[in-house]
């Protein structure tokens, strides 16, 4: 086979690979949407699941997913911003900082099930919080932190050095320069990264099955006092999320319409994550525009 033929053959193969991948995505999304979207109804999205009969929904699970996400972001974003600022602005290249960087890298590469087991051992058992939203949110924060730290550090490092000097030259302290000049300039990047990470958190299940638990007690959506045991906001109640729900009913679901429910739930999950994807692009672009033209 001569070189020219090999070249043509390789090109054909590469096109075939691209075809396979595009078909794969189309097939995956097609499957989820074709089977799932017909299941979606207002009733499905809002009503609680049924254990033995058909017609259950995923209302509490959907709420739990968002509630856990919000709590996770509330915990992990401030810590990540602090850590990202330190690594980008203050950290010198010494053994301690190198050590810390390695540890953060290790954390980001840990399987999420290991993070979940840590949460189980530490938050659920040792601190005695049981299977609860709080345990789940903290486990998800641990899972989310290393990625966010990297996002923040990178966005901050992308701000030109001259911006910092301009701040210093006005008699700002380094800290003031960071908070009033650098951070606002890095904000579009940070927000985009946080929203993208939210999609990952939203779909995570392995870190949650042993922290937030696999059940949702009866909750009363009219009771918004976080201390009440039936309140959806109560941080010490177990909370099964959408992703965990899909996993659970596929393993042990005994309701007759289990497969229809997981179809619907999967579609809902994917739609939410597509939403995060689009939002991150849109909001990132909007913020950038506002900064540069507003």
């Amino acid at each position, binding site marked *: 086979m001569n070189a020219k033929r090999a070249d043509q053959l390789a090109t054909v193969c*590469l*096109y075939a690979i691209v075809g396979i991948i595009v078909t794969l995505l189309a097939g995956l999304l097609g499957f989820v949407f074709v089977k799932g979207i017909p299941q979606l109804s207002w009733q499905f999205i809002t009503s609680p699941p049924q254990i033995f009969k058909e017609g259950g929904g995923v209302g509490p699970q959907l709420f739990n997913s968002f509630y856990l996400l919000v709590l996770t972001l509330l915990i992990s974003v*401030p810590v990540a911003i602090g850590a990202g600022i330190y690594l980008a602005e203050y950290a010198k290249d010494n053994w301690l900082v190198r050590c810390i960087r390695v540890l953060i890298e290790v954390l980001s590469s840990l*399987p999420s099930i290991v993070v979940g087991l840590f949460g189980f*051992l*530490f938050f659920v058992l040792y601190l005695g919080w049981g299977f609860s939203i709080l345990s789940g949110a903290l486990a998800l924060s641990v899972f989310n932190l*290393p990625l966010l730290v990297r996002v923040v550090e990178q966005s901050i490092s992308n701000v030109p050095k001259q911006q910092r000097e301009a701040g210093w030259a006005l008699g700002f302290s380094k800290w003031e320069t960071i908070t009033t000049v650098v951070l606002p300039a890095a904000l579009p990047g940070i927000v985009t990264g946080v929203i993208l990470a939210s999609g990952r958190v939203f779909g995570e299940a392995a870190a949650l099955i042993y922290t937030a638990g696999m059940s949702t007690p009866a909750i009363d959506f009219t009771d918004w006092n976080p201390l009440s045991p039936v309140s959806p906001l109560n941080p010490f109640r177990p909370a099964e999320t959408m992703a965990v729900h899909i996993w659970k009913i596929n393993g042990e679901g005994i309701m007759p319409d289990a497969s229809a429910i997981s179809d619907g739930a999967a579609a809902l*999950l994917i739609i939410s994550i597509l939403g995060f994807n689009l939002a991150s692009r849109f909001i990132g672009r909007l913020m950038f525009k506002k900064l540069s033209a507003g």
Partner: protein
Amino acid sequence: MAKLLKESEHPLYRKSNKMRMERAGKWITFLSVVLTAAITVAILLLVFSKGLSTFAVNNGSLKEFLTGTEWNPGKVSEIGKPIIGALPFLAGSLAVTGISAVICAPIAIGAAIFMSEISQKTGKKIMQPVIELLVGIPSVVYGFIGLSVVVPLLREVFPGSGFGIAAGTIVLSVMILPTVTSLSLDAIQSVPRSLREASLALGSTRWQMIYRVVLKTAKPGLMMAIIFGMARAFGEALAVQMVIGNAAVIPHSLFEPASTLTSILTMGMGYTVMGQVENNALWSLALILLLMSLFFTLAVRIIGKGRTVR
């Protein structure tokens, strides 16, 4: 108010709260970093101490753990040691990881070559969003699709229930494909343009240029991409657990039910009591998982270092 100032109070001597804020800010951010690192240390310590207690407290045999094929930690063998043969899980994990890397690597690298060398326009316009969407799909959804599509399909074509290493491998290959593709793309794109032009100027065809110059130069980066993918596959729990069948034996074929470290952890942790042998044995599996993840991280670092030095 100026009258209240002493003569020596030149504005340059003024104390401002800037230094105090500076110190406070530096400390707070430092503590955030330390917190992140401390969490990692806590996880490592906990998993190590829990995982080692099977051997230290419950008198388990490490050799048995790594080579035994019977898993029944609640019972003791004739010589009075818990039966903790974890080889089936280890073999299962290694099999799904290895095979899915073999399936995924050529496709991912091919896609990356296409995006960088064949058609950058299609690459950017179509492939980039496709890859981003695939990255975003949660692993339970991959598992769910595996369960409702791949497993029945395998059941039709091959003897057996459809659950097994083959199903796990297919699900994992698709799952790690986008990650490996985008990392491979980074590696290929970091090959300097001049090398490509030099090769083409010498009369190579495009494929010869890709094969001899681009892939060769990008090799460490491509290895890193594949190892990253393997690390993800090895640590993935739910998607695999849903399709692998969860039988604690070494299967005779790829189409028989098997187990991985993660699947047995997922299944078992809720049914054991903290502190007992059954539970500690599971933590030993978690320790293996952790050690493998450290190994993958280390491998990536070593290859990465070799790359930057060159």
